């Protein structure tokens, strides 16, 4: 009897250990490969890898991912600056609704957003492309350079991909705040706007964590960008029309360069993966650090 129990315990323990080791090995392998292959390229081409355009295929040097880095920065900056206020406001609206019609609208918002989370991001990208294509003839009268492949489309796609995450996190956080906190705010004579502000402040670390998750999603998104940002391996002309021109991104660089048979381009793909990895690792660390405060 006892030996049977002991055996069972040993079996379960060892299978747990095996599962743990498997995970560690797999994650470790990914990190090690990216670091090993990517870091070497980044280090040997530092700092030009951050500013140069990719070298010609089959050349000795690799060049750099400058246009892609710039593209990711611009895309994320625009998507983030529109996404943050909207996701925060939407979260407050759904979590803090009082009147019946507000509650109904809030429910619909929540449902839609949760559906959007489940959407394959390539579909999001395609639908943005479709909308932009449909808009093109009308917008063209104001902006002759308007095309569906643009920085603007890319930013809209990233916005749609990441807002549901930020929204859901903040909304969950708001819902978890005990009712008496709200009542305390209201009883002191605070209006709804001020109360919401106080609640968001109360949730500071959750909000920051939500935003950094949103940011990480934007940085690492690929599929939504295929038919929106489209990609570019050269620097765009940085004039007023830049919003309406295609732009590169690090993730697209990983994809396109990784698929080719040229060694220097494959190296470049690894370099881009490493930069992406470093960025998301930094964000992950920051969000962990912020969440610890709770």
């Amino acid at each position, binding site marked *: 009897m006892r030996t049977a129990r002991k055996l069972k315990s040993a079996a379960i323990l060892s299978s747990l250990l095996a599962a743990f080791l498997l995970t560690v090995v797999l994650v470790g392998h990914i990190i090690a490969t990216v670091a090993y292959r990517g870091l070497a390229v980044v280090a040997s081409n530092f700092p030009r890898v951050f500013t140069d355009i990719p070298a010609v*295929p089959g050349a000795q040097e690799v060049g750099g991912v400058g246009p892609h880095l710039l593209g990711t920065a611009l895309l994320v900056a625009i998507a983030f*600056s529109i996404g943050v206020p909207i996701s925060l406001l939407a979260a407050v609206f759904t979590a803090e609704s009082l009147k019946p019609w507000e509650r109904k609208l809030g429910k619909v918002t929540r449902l839609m957003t949760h559906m959007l989370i489940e959407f394959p991001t390539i579909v999001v990208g395609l639908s943005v492309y479709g909308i932009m294509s449909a808009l093109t003839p009308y917008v063209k009268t104001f902006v002759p350079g308007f095309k569906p*492949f643009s920085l603007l489309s890319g930013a809209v796609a990233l916005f749609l991909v990441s807002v549901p995450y930020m929204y859901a996190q903040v909304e969950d956080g708001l819902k978890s705040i005990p009712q008496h906190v709200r009542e305390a705010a209201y009883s002191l004579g605070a209006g709804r706007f001020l109360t919401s502000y106080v609640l968001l402040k109360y949730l500071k670390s959750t909000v920051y964590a939500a935003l950094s998750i949103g940011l990480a999603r934007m940085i690492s998104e690929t599929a939504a960008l295929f038919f929106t940002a*489209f990609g*570019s391996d050269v*620097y*765009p002309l940085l004039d007023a029309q830049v919003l309406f021109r295609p732009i590169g991104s690090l993730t697209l660089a990983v994809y*396109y360069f990784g698929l080719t*048979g040229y060694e220097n381009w494959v190296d470049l793909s690894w370099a881009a993966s490493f930069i992406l990895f470093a960025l998301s690792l930094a964000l992950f660390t920051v969000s962990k650090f912020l969440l610890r405060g709770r």
Partner: protein
Amino acid sequence: MKKLKLVVTISAIVVLSVVGFTVAQSQLARREVATVTVTPTPTQTPTPTITASPASITGGGASFVNPQMQLWIRRFMESTGGRIAVNYQSIGSGAGEAKWLEGALDFGVSDIGISKAGYQKLVDSRRRFIQIPIVAGSVAVIYNIPEFARAGCELRLSGEVVADIYLGKIIKWSDPRVAELQDSRCRAHLPDREIYGVHRSDGSGTTALFTMYLTLISKEWAEKVSYGYTVTWPRDQMGLGEGARGNEGVSAKVLNTPYSIGYVEAAYAIQQKIPVAFIRNREGRFVKPDATTVSEALKRAAVDLPGPQEFWGDLPLKYYMNREGENTYPIVGTPVAFMYLDAPRELRLALYEFFRWVLTEGQKAENIVEGFIPIPEALRVKALQYLEALISAQ
């Protein structure tokens, strides 16, 4: 409270002002007339040099030409000091054509020319456009016969035999129809093994060229299979063949499967040093794809190349393939670039400048990626003629 309001207001102002600024700028830009200077070049070339104003052109399409396009773009942008930014992304021939038709791209590149459906759309909408060949390409038949490799033999095939292999009518390497093509010394080394037929599983211009050739050569292939970016492979249904993704996939499959046969873009086969079969040409000579044999075929096609607005979807089949000449390789094609003639003038000038560069400087050896083949002089001259429509169009 105040802070939040402030943040919201500031971000709203920033977004609105960026949009407003861009709209205003582009309105201004619209009013500016493109600065075009037409100056005759001092010597030799009688064609005027056209300098387009700063512009940004976006193209996309065939992935096969991507390395070559990227090299051209780099060199072209260096030569113009970045005045014209060219962006090309390898989204595939089909997507390139579709997105160009939808107006999302300034130019498209496809492995074999605009498809029938796409051409019909263009005709229906009465859009004016041109198509030009930009570089030469060809398809190599690759194989893996260990006995041949050991004996230092090289495989010889004819179009009919290749068609019958993929149709499933020739089962084994030792088939008399294969044997009769071989060198007398090598004939005995043909193994009594089943041939494994590898092909592309993804839609590709290479498959389109290969199946076009088989369609041209074999009546039965034309009736049963025909040509396209993807086709249904009869040999697969017999369990004697399978698909693989990309040139890489097909060559890896062939290299790892003894007694197999496959086809890849010739540039790729040469680069990767995969055994390439000789193909019997119209004059009965056995030739391999290389710069000379491919140019020989295209040189002859230049004479009867159809106009730039004709249907080019079967151009290789009708004009390029199985041409006369002793040293002519039969399975050739040219990636084709297409652009609208009713595009804004500034854009047309920028496109003109870029593609003119591609067809002149771009065809020089120092601007050609290893494995690619420049188009022969006769075809190049014809393409340059077609390109002139970009400036003369209203």
